[in-house]
């Protein structure tokens, strides 16, 4: 899952970015309102973490602009302000959640997962498909109830496919959800990951749509 972190404090931003990456997320980090606007417009993120006190533009104005332009990406506010009126104002301005610093990294991840379920209209975080399960919390994948070890990016790719069964995901969409702007990527990286997943899962249900992308065929309702 790809996240946008908008936080101007160098030490905190670095710590949160690292912590979230350790937890399996793809993270891009910007430090001011202008960069935030540009990043948000790119529409690449599944969740946005927004600090309220930014230089040059307030976090609230970034949020307002985003919602006015119709962007529905889930937003969690990270802030040192714990006043009731600030919480109410932020939530009414379009934030989906509000967490006060200092916060627990695990709690932040749990709230991100909660918003993701809401956004994807899932009842629970655990993803199930035929004989495969994927748990975003523990990073565990099982095949026929036996644990399967897969590296970080293949996990992210599998998660994306399982979240959108029956939907065509273009090559570009998949690449953008697997790599942050900082990462250097080989041109055939995606093909390699797909190949590995097919092998490890012994599945023919990951279909290639030549020239377009990939799709996980919908599960049979039987």
């Amino acid at each position, binding site marked *: 899952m790809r996240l946008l972190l908008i936080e*101007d404090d160098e*030490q905190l931003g670095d*710590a949160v970015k690292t*912590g979230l990456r*350790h937890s399996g997320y793809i993270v891009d980090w910007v430090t*001011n309102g202008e960069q935030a606007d540009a990043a948000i417009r790119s529409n690449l993120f599944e969740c946005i973490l927004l600090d309220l006190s930014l*230089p*040059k533009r307030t976090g609230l104005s970034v949020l307002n602009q985003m919602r006015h332009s119709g962007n529905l990406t889930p937003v969690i506010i990270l802030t040192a302000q714990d006043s009731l009126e600030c919480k109410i104002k932020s939530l009414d301005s379009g934030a989906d959640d509000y967490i006060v610093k*200092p916060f627990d*990294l695990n709690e932040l991840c749990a709230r991100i997962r909660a918003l993701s379920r809401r956004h994807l209209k899932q009842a629970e975080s655990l993803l199930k498909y035929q004989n495969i399960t994927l748990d975003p919390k523990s990073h565990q994948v099982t095949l026929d109830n036996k644990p399967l070890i897969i590296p970080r990016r293949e996990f992210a790719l599998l998660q994306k496919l399982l979240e959108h069964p029956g939907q065509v995901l273009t090559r570009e969409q998949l690449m953008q959800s697997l790599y942050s702007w900082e990462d250097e990527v080989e041109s055939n990286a995606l093909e390699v990951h797909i190949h590995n997943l097919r092998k490890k899962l012994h599945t023919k249900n990951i279909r290639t749509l030549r020239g377009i992308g990939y799709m996980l065929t919908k599960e049979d309702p039987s």
Partner: protein
Amino acid sequence: MLLLIIGILCLLGLLIYIFSRQIIAYFNRISLKKTKRFAANAAHELRTPLAAIKTQAQIALISQNLAEKDQAIEKLLLSVNRCTHIIQQLLIQGNLSPEKNFSLVQLDSIAQDIYQLLLPIAHSKNIQILCQFEEKLPAIIGNEVTLGILIRNLLDNAIRYSPMNSQINLKLYSRKKEIVLEIIDQGPGIPKSYQRSVFERFYRILGNENTGCGLGLSIVQEISLQHHARIILKSNPAKYKGLSIKLYFPKATHKNKLNTKK
């Protein structure tokens, strides 16, 4: 007649008693407000650095890789130092009061002490500090301790923002009615549009990775005000790139000397 006088004196005494209690209560309220405000500010300002510490500690715990753990712990220590710095600056600011513990002081000897104190830090960045103090510099009226804090904050800033291998000029000279303290560095300077805001508490210009905490200049301003000094900022002065800060202190005159403690 005597009774009347005694009566009036008693009444006066009572009035003074009531009045002074009101004054004390008033000052207590102010200082309680001030204390509350100070505590609220301190709490607020420490939250973000504490958040960094918490997250870094959690990273250190979950890292399997020893090198990653070490890195997380090192960053943790940096954050702790930062918190300490913030607390120190907050305490200094909290303690700055308008009471005049003023006497005749020599800016050059105070500056000399601060220069010696910060020399090792400048040295670690290979920065040269050039002291140009006018001989027989006249005295000013002020508080030695707070003036030391002021100069330390200015020189500390200059060192922080100066690139390696650069030069800082620390000048003290007199004009007709004022003594001028000037610090010139070769750092990035402060664009004109930000020159007013930099004195606000905790204001830091975007994009700098410095580990200061943004209170330095507001402390400088407060101390300058107490000393009736004015501050002029100039960015990219003619000869050197960077920032020039000048403080103009009124000279000690015969009149104000009389009002000071000895």
